C-alpha cells in the first residue's frame, strides 16, 4: 500500500507551502463490486486497493466501463462493496445500513455533480444550507452563517440571494461547490464537475479546486478528461475494474496560469 502513497510534489509552481499529512482519509482494501445482470455477473470493481491522505487532490480517470462511476458510488457511500472493506475517515462502511450511510455522507462527504443538481427556484444560500438541514446540530442561524461563509469561499459572496435559475453554469457549479464545502467534509467528491462547462469556466472551476486544495481540503475528482490530471497532485487510472496506474504528479500545473493564457471569452 505504501507504494501508492504519493510523494511530496517537488517543484510545483503553487503548492510549495503545503505540508504532507499522514492522516488517512480514505482506505480501500480489496474492494470488489459485482452486479448481477440477468444470468451474468458483471464485475465492475475487481479488487481495488488504495489510500488517500488528508490534503490530497486526486483525479480518478478511466474510460466509460472502467468502473469509475461504481468506484465513485463506493467512495461516496452511496453503494457498498460486495467484498473487501472501505474505511472513510477510519469508519468501515460495508456493513452500514442505508440511514447510517446517509448520516455518514452528511458529515464526511461533499458532492459536486456534473449537472450541478441545485434545487430549482431556490436561492444560493438555501441551496448551500441543504446538507445542514439534515444535521440537527445546526440551528437556522448557524446554518445560514456557514452557508454564507462557504459561498464567500467560492467567490459568490455577492450573490447570496440569487435564485438557481438566475445564474450561469459557472455560478451554479460554484454554488454546488459551496454546498459540498459547507459541512466541512473529510473529502470533496467531484463527479465530472467541469463536464457541462465551457473551457474558460472549466478552468475557473479548476482554479477554485486548486485553491481549496491549498487550504488543505481533500479532493477526489472523477473525470475522463486527461487534461485535468495535470492540475491535481495524484492520478489514479482505472481500467476494467482495476487500478492500472496510480501516480503522484510531481509537477502540478497552475490552473490560474492556464486560465490567464486562454483567449478572453466572447461574452459573459
Amino acid at each position: 500500500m505504501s507504494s501508492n502513497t504519493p510523494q511530496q510534489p517537488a517543484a510545483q509552481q503553487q503548492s510549495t507551502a503545503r505540508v504532507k499529512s499522514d492522516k488517512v482519509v480514505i482506505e480501500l482494501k480489496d474492494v470488489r463490486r459485482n452486479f448481477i445482470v440477468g444470468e451474468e455477473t458483471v464485475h465492475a470493481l475487481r479488487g481495488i486497493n488504495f489510500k488517500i491522505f488528508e490534503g490530497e487532490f486526486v483525479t480518478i480517470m478511466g474510460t466509460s466501463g472502467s468502473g469509475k462511476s461504481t468506484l465513485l458510488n463506493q467512495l461516496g457511500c452511496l453503494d457498498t462493496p460486495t467484498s473487501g472493506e472501505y474505511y472513510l475517515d477510519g469508519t468501515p462502511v460495508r456493513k452500514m445500513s442505508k440511514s447510517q450511510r446517509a448520516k455518514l455522507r452528511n458529515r464526511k462527504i461533499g458532492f459536486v455533480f456534473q449537472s450541478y443538481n441545485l434545487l430549482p427556484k431556490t436561492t444560493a444560500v438555501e441551496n448551500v444550507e441543504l446538507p445542514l438541514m439534515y444535521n440537527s446540530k445546526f440551528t437556522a442561524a448557524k446554518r445560514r452563517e456557514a452557508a454564507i461563509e462557504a459561498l464567500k469561499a467560492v467567490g459568490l459572496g455577492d450573490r447570496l440571494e440569487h435564485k438557481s435559475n438566475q445564474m450561469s453554469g459557472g455560478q451554479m457549479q460554484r454554488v454546488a461547490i459551496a454546498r459540498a464545502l459547507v459541512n466541512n467534509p473529510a473529502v470533496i467528491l467531484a463527479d465530472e464537475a467541469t463536464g457541462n462547462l465551457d473551457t474558460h469556466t472549466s478552468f475557473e472551476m479548476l482554479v477554485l479546486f486548486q485553491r481549496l486544495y491549498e487550504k488543505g481540503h481533500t479532493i477526489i475528482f472523477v473525470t475522463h478528461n486527461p487534461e485535468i490530471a495535470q492540475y491535481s497532485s495524484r492520478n489514479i487510472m482505472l481500467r476494467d475494474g482495476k487500478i492500472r496506474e496510480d501516480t503522484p504528479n510531481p509537477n502540478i500545473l497552475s490552473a490560474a496560469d492556464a486560465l490567464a493564457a486562454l483567449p478572453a471569452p466572447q461574452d459573459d
Partner: protein
Amino acid sequence: MNFLNLFKVAFRAIGSNKFRSFLSMLGIIIGVAAVIIMTAIGQGSKESVRANIAQMGTNVLTVRPGADMRGGVRQDPSAMQTLKPEDYEAIVANKKYITYVSPEVTSGGQAIYGANNTNTSMYGESIEYFNIKQWPIVSGSAFTEEDVRKSAKVCVVGKTIVNELFPDGQDPVGKTIRFKSIPFRIIGVLKSKGYNNWGMDQDNVLIAPYTTVMKRLLAQTYYSSIVCSAIREELTDQAIDELTTTLRQNHKIKEGAEDDFTIRSQQEMMETMTSTMDTITIILVVAAAFSLLVAGIGIMNIMLVSVTERTKEIGLRMAVGARGIDISYQFLIESTLISITGGMLGVLVGWGGSTVCGLLGLPTSIPMWSILLSFAVCTLIGIAFGYVPAKKAANMDPIEAIRYE
C-alpha cells in the same frame, strides 16, 4: 430534518406548483364543503322539527283506536268505533296527571263563502282543545261550553281560511260560511301557525264544537281520537299510564290482552322524527364522504407525479444526507398540508354554502362535530394517501435518482 424545516420545504413545494396544488385541493374542498352543508341541513332540519313539535306542545297526548283484532285481522284504526263518550267521561272523571281533555272528530270538505270556496278540514273539539294546543284566538272568541252542549253551528277559523274565503280583507267574525252545505257562523280567528314539518298547512282548519261535528255533519257517536295534555312534559309517562288504566277498565280488557287503543305522545313523535332525520343525515354525509375518498385518490395521484418529477431532487437530498424517513416525512407533510388546507377552505366554502341554503329557506345549523370531523378526516386522507407516494420516494436509490433525467 426538523419539522419546521419540513414544513418550509412542503410550503415551498406547494407554492411552486400553485395551480396544481389548488386543483388537487379542490377535491378536498368540494368534499368537505359537501359534508358540512349536508350535516348543516340535516342538523338544521332536526332542530326545526324539534322546535315545531315543541311548539305544538310536548305534553300533548293523543289516544287513537287501534290494535283491534277481529278474528286475527287487524282493523283499520279509522274504521274503529271504540272511543266513545263514556271513555271521555271516564278520563275527565279520573284525571290526575292530565289537565285538559278534548274528544276529536274530523271531517274534510268544501267551505264556501259567497263566491269563494276552499277545500279544508273541520275539527270537532271541546273548548279545552285551545288550551291543549296553546292556540290563542286573535280576533273574536272561542266557542263556549254552552255551544258544545247545544251543538251550536259556530266555528273558529285558521288564517288560511280567512285568506281564501275573505280575500278582500273584510272581517270574518260574525259571517256565516257553509261547510258541506251546513251553515256555520264564524266567531273567532286563530293565530297563524304556518306549515308544519310534513308540509301541512296548520292554518287550513275550521274548529267547531265536537258535538256539532258529530251530530250535524257526521252523524256518528264515536270519536276519531281523544287529545289530552299532561300536567308537565316530565309527567307524560304517568299520564299515559293513567289513560291506559282508565281505558282498559272502561273497555273491560282482560289482564294480558292487548290494548284496543294506542296513545301517542309528542315526545315519542319527536323521537321518531329526529331518528328519521338522523338516518337521512347519515345517508347524505356518507354520500358526501365518498367525494372525500375520491379527493384523497386525487391527492395520491398528484403526489405520485410530484415524486417522479422530483426524483433528481430526492437523489440530491439523499446524497447530502437525507435518510429515507426524512424524504418520506417531506412528502407526507406535503400531502397532509394540501389536504388540511383544502379542508380549511372546504369548511369556509361549506359555511358559505350553508348560509346560502339558509337564505334560500332551508333550515341549516352547522354542528361543531362536522367541522372537527372534516379536519380529522382530511389529516387522515393526507397521511393515508400520501403514504404510498412517500414510500416510493423514500425507497429510491440515490445513485439512480441523482442521474435521473
